[in-house]
């Protein structure tokens, strides 16, 4: 009490501060708190995955549509950086809590069972043994993170050495009509030719294969993560669970189809540079 009064003259600020600190400790230093972090950042990243896919699908509407969309995103300026830093923060927290939780899980069970699960009621085996997607979250997650880094280097930082297309995406610009190619465009001043980048990028089979595999893993990850998210946040129960599981499976499948439709269409010659 004496300490409290000496700090804030008994105005209650000390209590408020102490309570906020307890709240933060309760989130970052406990099992359930870290599960909240996983779920909330996971939900945010899922939102990004959906928006990114919807934006990408504009490629089917032709070069003008997607190039204009990209130009509008670029024009957001400082807001774009807020979104980028927010995303990076969510990725960081998601990975940090995943590594922390996984290492605790490994320490909690250091000896595995000799026998594979064979319950006397054989049909109950599927309920007792954890599903593939649930067992492999850390692996699917880390591979997706590695892919995301490659994907940024490929299309955002436009590192020419890794695109496998013997072209420099840095030189792809369009004029004000978003269609006519522009020679000698300047970054930040002229509009990037996203359409040409997508088509040139995915024309390389190895790049497309890596993309499809990564998106496949993302969907395996989401098929478990999206339903577990509701449980971690305390929303799940036996009445809602079947719907939440269907949502997880359905959303994962739609995301898979939505994303892979682009490299598949490029390789099949359905999307071409006119």
């Amino acid at each position, binding site marked *: 009490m004496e300490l409290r009064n000496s700090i804030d003259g008994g105005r209650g600020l000390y209590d408020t501060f102490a309570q906020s600190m307890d709240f933060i400790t309760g989130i970052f230093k406990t*099992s359930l708190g870290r*599960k909240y972090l996983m779920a909330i950042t996971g939900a945010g990243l899922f939102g990004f995955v959906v928006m990114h896919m919807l934006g990408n699908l504009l490629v089917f509407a032709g070069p003008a549509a997607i190039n204009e969309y990209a130009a509008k995103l670029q024009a957001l300026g400082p807001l774009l950086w807020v979104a980028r830093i927010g995303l990076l923060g969510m990725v960081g927290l998601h990975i940090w809590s995943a590594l922390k939780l996984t290492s605790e899980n490994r320490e*909690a069970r250091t000896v595995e069972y000799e026998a594979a*699960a064979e319950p006397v009621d054989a049909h109950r085996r599927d*309920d*007792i043994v954890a599903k593939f997607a649930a067992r492999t979250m850390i692996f699917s997650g880390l591979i997706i993170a590695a892919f995301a880094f490659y994907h940024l280097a490929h299309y955002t930082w436009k590192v020419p050495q890794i695109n496998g297309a013997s072209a420099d995406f840095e030189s792809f610009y369009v004029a004000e009509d978003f269609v006519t190619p522009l020679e000698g465009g300047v970054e930040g001043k002229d509009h990037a030719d996203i359409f040409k980048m997508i088509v040139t990028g995915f024309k390389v089979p190895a790049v497309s294969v890596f993309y499809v595999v990564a998106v496949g893993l993302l969907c395996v990850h989401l098929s478990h993560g999206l339903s577990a998210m509701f*449980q971690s946040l*305390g929303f799940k129960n036996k009445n809602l*669970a079947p719907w939440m599981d269907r949502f997880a499976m359905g959303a994962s499948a739609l995301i898979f189809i939505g994303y892979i439709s682009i490299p598949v269409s490029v390789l099949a010659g359905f999307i071409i540079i006119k």
Partner: protein
Amino acid sequence: MDLKLKVWRQDNAGDVGRFEEYQARDISPDMSFLEMLDVVNEGLIGSGKEPIAFDSDCREGICGSCSMVINGTAHGGQKGTTACQLHMRHFSDGMTITIEPWRATAFPVHRDLVVDRTAFDRIQQKGGFISVRTGSVPDANAIPVSKDESDLAMDAAQCIGCGACVAACKNASAMLFVAAKISHLSLVPQGQPERERRALAMVKQMDDEGFGNCTVTGSCEAVCPKEISLDFIARMNREYGRALIKKGTV
């Protein structure tokens, strides 16, 4: 029926342990799993060997003592059944049965199939109770409790603390147990005064004991002899969040 048993033998907590094989002959299909082990132990004692140590008490499925993983499955995998209530008729003649103790860092093996489950007791001591005057018996119905909530509280209260949830979980997580204990008392009026403190303290002790974290695989619910629902883990997650906001710390 005749069976081949492959049993985990460990002399004490410090021993590395090993599997040993035994023949179980002339077993009646009507015996319980523990009675079958009793017969095998009689034979071992008769031939001057150490019997297989295992926990048991009530042998009617309500005490939660019998802890063993039978063919890779806690309690053997019959729906809502403890090992003592599992009968030999569910096994086929001549088959090999592997018997192992619960495997979890927080449940160290004492000997053979006996593990130390005092971690659960320490979690309970942190808040799995209500502080009330325990004088004379109160009048029935003096405190109104709604039917729905009392049913749900009773579902949670069914937990016998056997530890099968921890044994079955790939992460050795105790969340189903802790969720049942937190939910049970948070649902009835008697549990309200200590509601936030209980959730915070029990979760903290669970973490300190070195149990893993829930990854929502559902294995715990599937092996639970009292069929405690995964819904209680969601309820615990809500209770903990509520307690963090209202109270913050123990």
